[in-house]
């Protein structure tokens, strides 16, 4: 066992984060301010998600960490090792085996269950920030449910590009009350925000925590004549042939040859293992 307090953070900090999480759960989509701590990793590497995960972990948990769907990228590997070292918890790459999944910018393809908690790393929790730079103003807009500016932004997208051009971090309305940023997940993942799993969002640098409880109504903003479209690249996965998963475009040589592969590495590996099993 390490010499760290369980899950790294001191107990006073955990209590503060836990109170913020509970208020976030009670008011779905509302951003609760919290006193984010300096973590042993830079802002932008998931300090918010790490603090939320640390506050929720129990010794019996099995943790999975993904970065853009992949378990084997630097960010995911470091955070997984961090909690192996400081909390001595079991880790896994299998989505179905995990009880807590910390994610950067994806929701796993496999449907999550009631026994799982999904923790998002959030760089910019305020969906209105690029429209209104003042926190005082955006807070007032949320209080008054004044979201006209966001609809104007989506309308201007249509006027300029012929469609809503936002492809990731696509704003949603939670429980008919708060407009919320789902973090920079592709809009392909937006329908999965209505889930059986509890979803917690942590923004370290911006010092905000928010939540979407299970079975909460989450609607992607759109217009009657321009309905929300969770689009994806029109290709099957080059490795597992999945037609219904979110794809990464990978450049494979200097001549511009490219392939499309599943962004969710565990989903893709599972499918390939199953296909090999059938072939053998």
């Amino acid at each position, binding site marked *: 066992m390490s010499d760290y307090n369980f899950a790294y953070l001191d107990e006073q900090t955990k209590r503060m984060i*836990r109170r913020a999480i509970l*208020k976030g*759960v009670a008011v779905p989509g*509302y951003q609760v301010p919290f006193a984010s701590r300096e973590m042993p990793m830079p802002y932008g590497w998931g300090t918010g998600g790490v603090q939320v995960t640390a506050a929720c972990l129990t010794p019996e948990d099995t943790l999975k960490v993904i970065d853009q769907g992949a378990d084997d990228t630097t960010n995911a590997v470091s955070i997984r090792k961090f909690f192996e070292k400081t909390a001595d918890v079991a880790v896994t790459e299998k989505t179905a085996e995990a009880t807590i999944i910390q994610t950067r910018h994806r929701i796993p393809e496999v449907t999550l269950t009631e026994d799982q908690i999904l923790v998002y790393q959030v760089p910019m929790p305020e969906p209105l920030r690029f429209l209104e730079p003042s926190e005082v103003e955006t807070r007032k807009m949320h209080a008054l449910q004044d979201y006209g500016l966001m609809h104007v932004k989506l309308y201007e997208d249509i006027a300029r590009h012929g469609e809503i051009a936002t492809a990731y971090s696509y704003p949603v309305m939670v429980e008919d009350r708060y407009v919320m940023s789902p973090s920079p997940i592709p809009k392909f993942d937006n329908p999965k925000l209505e889930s059986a799993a509890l979803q917690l969002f942590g923004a370290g640098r911006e010092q905000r925590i928010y*939540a979407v409880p299970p079975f909460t109504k989450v609607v992607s903003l759109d217009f009657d004549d321009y309905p929300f479209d969770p689009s994806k690249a029109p290709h099957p996965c080059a490795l597992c042939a999945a037609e219904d998963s979110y794809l990464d475009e990978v450049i494979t040589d200097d001549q511009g040859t490219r392939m499309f592969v599943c962004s969710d590495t565990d989903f893709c590996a599972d499918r390939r293992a199953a296909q090999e099993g059938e072939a053998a």
Partner: protein
Amino acid sequence: MAAVYLDGGFKDPARDAAHAFRAALQAMARPGRIETVAGVAPPAPCSVAAGALLVTLCDTTTPIYLAPSHDTEGLRGWITFHTGAPFTGPEHAMFGLGTWAALAAVTRFSPGTAEYPDRSATLIVELGELSTNGATLSGPGIRTIARLSLPEVAAFQQNRRRFPLGFDTYLTCGDRLAGLPRSTRVEG
């Protein structure tokens, strides 16, 4: 301070609090689900579940209101030793503890502000019986409907009407607890 207050806290604070918080989180995220907690032995009349919530969530930054049903010297001493939380009236409390009758009128507790609805009270209501019978619940955290033995329906309906303002509630009985966030719609 009498030595009697010193016992009854978490033996392994980090891990025991982690377990208690997970139970509290699941309860608040899934109204109608009853969770079990352990690890504390608060003095009467405080239940194990209420004691675990206090030790897990309260510290010197969270004023507590003890309703007349729970305002005993023994419990004050225990809470002070294990959390350091100051005691206050209902208007300024972040946490309120008592029986439903003793906590009335619940409109005295802070519902937060329009810009900061998180600055609201959390009530810990001690019940003689806690079961998944009774009032019908729907809303966030509930697939279709859930049921919970609430001490009253009208007060929670009134609380829901001012959403996103409102207090959040834990119902406790022995070592079991259930959550009732302000977002839940309650029908008799």
